[in-house]
């Protein structure tokens, strides 16, 4: 078992302003250890210069740091070749890049298969293709919050050119069997994408084992800085992809009427890259590597198991939660409601029948009240509005864990929830 208190010492946030904050919003972003902050500061203090223009030594050093960060992060996800790793701003940008560049090869009638548990960043970029006649399909979930594989199979057909699936749902915590899904996608001849924004930070992820064609994740959800993320792609797949942003760095020659593009991954990194971000993310990967991702996963499994036990034992009035009950297929994410409020579709008219006032505490109130007890959670649709509505609620509150959280934090959450029920009833 990890000692979360021990880790907290590594985080200036928790020894400073965040000393009394129970931070349970790690699916949104994580705090940063001193060594990540120091790595960024060290880059700007000692190595700041533009990369890939190495006429002078300082620039060569910066270029080298950038390359070594790429290698380090590449190894962390089990990629055999650092050229398969493209630095982007975040998972959202990686998925936009894919929707744009893969999208150029799709034609009217082609289908993109997603799941109903996708984050908006794995829905909206694909919706941009709809005006070209490309159809989006959504595999449904089962009652227990797991993916409905029968429905998935049914929607996977010869028109399905792309399958893009989240590995861990940011609302339900469901861990999808992306290896199995990938096999099915490949047997069908579809390109297979994994949105790993909620999995790479929390468990061992190996791109070779998963055999995905592309993978997207963000640095800031795994102790790294904001503004740096990763698109992984198999070398041959990346090479076959048309560029996304155009500009400097992504070309070798430019003429008035055409350009010659650089090799991958440079082809997808137009403009001055976020070198400090890459260096910071590399430091975060070192930090996580020393803990061991198996240990991170075990720790969060313990916290979610404890949460579900606590829920069962405490009987907080009106408390309902979502997602699989089996910790083996559940990340450290706990979405819940104190009474449910359902979406309305009334055509501009409501009457007393539609009122559930007093039967529930709105997640916004839950969030604000938990904040009064210095507990930070997220409340709303968590950028997964289709899933929220699929669950037939308008919003949920969500606690999400990381290495520095402990069972005590879970206790604090439940004590505060009991108090809130008392205030509103």
């Amino acid at each position, binding site marked *: 078992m990890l000692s979360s208190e021990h880790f907290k010492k590594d985080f200036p946030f928790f020894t400073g302003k965040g000393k009394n904050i129970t931070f349970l919003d790690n699916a949104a972003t994580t705090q940063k250890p001193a060594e990540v902050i120091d790595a960024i500061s060290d880059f700007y203090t000692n190595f700041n210069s533009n990369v890939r223009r190495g006429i002078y030594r300082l620039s060569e050093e910066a270029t080298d740091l950038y390359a070594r960060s790429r290698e380090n992060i590449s190894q962390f996800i089990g990629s055999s070749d650092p050229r398969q790793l493209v630095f982007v701003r975040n998972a959202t940008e990686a998925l936009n890049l894919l929707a744009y560049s893969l999208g150029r090869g799709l034609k009217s009638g082609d289908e993109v298969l997603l799941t109903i548990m996708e984050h908006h960043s794995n829905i909206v970029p694909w919706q941009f293709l709809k005006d070209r006649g490309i159809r989006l399909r959504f595999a449904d979930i089962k009652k227990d919050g797991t993916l409905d594989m029968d429905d998935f199979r049914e929607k996977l057909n010869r028109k399905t050119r792309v399958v893009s699936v989240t590995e861990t749902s940011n609302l339900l915590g469901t861990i999808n069997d992306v290896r199995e899904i990938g096999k099915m996608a490949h047997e069908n001849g579809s390109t297979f994408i994994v949105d790993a924004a909620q999995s790479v930070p929390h468990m061992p992820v190996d791109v070779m084992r998963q055999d995905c064609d592309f993978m997207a994740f963000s640095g800031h959800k795994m102790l790294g800085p904001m503004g740096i993320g990763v698109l992984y792609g198999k070398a041959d797949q990346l090479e076959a992809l048309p560029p996304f942003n155009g500009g400097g760095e992504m070309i070798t020659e430019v003429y008035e009427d055409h350009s010659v593009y650089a090799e991958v991954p440079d082809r997808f990194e137009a403009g001055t890259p976020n070198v400090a971000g890459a260096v910071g993310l590399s430091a975060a990967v070192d930090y996580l590597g020393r803990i061991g991702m198996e240990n991170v996963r075990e720790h969060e499994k313990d916290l979610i198991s404890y949460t579900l036990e606590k829920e069962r034992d405490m009987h907080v009035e009106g408390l309902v939660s979502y997602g699989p009950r089996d910790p083996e297929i559940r990340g450290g994410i706990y979405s819940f409601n104190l009474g449910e*409020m*359902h*979406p*309305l579709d*009334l055509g*501009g*008219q*409501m*009457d*007393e029948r*539609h*009122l*559930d*006032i*007093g039967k529930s505490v*709105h*997640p*916004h*109130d839950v969030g*604000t009240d938990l904040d009064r007890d210095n507990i930070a959670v997220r409340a*709303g*649709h968590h950028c997964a*509005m289709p899933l929220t509505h699929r669950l037939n*609620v*308008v*919003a949920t509150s969500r606690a999400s864990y990381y290495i520095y959280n402990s069972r005590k934090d879970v206790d604090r959450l439940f004590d505060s929830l009991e108090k809130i029920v008392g*205030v*509103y009833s």
Partner: protein
Amino acid sequence: MTDEDINTEILLEHYRSPHNYGQIQDASAKMMEYNPVCGDTVQFTISVDGGAIRDIKFIGRGCSVSQASASMLTDRVLGKSLEEVKKITPEDILQMIGLSLGPSREKCALLSLNALHKCIRKYEEETGGN
């Protein structure tokens, strides 16, 4: 108790026991406002006579801020002329609530004002302002 504590208690009191709750039968106008992003909903019915709000009721559901602000708003506009009510600004509502709401909760606070202003507009369109 700080002002913030007192205003929180007032807000909760309005939420638990809203004023002017219900619907007016044969209302002059009716308007519902629904925020699909968070589910907050309010619906006003108003009776207008001589260019003033003679009666107002609301029903709704949602977070305490959205429902309490609707309740407070009904108290504030009862008996007032439509012209006066149209002049109420978002800042007036935030001041009425008297809590430092973050930007994400301000939307909740302003749902009822939007609904009431729409309700008045609808009334004026339907009656030609008479």
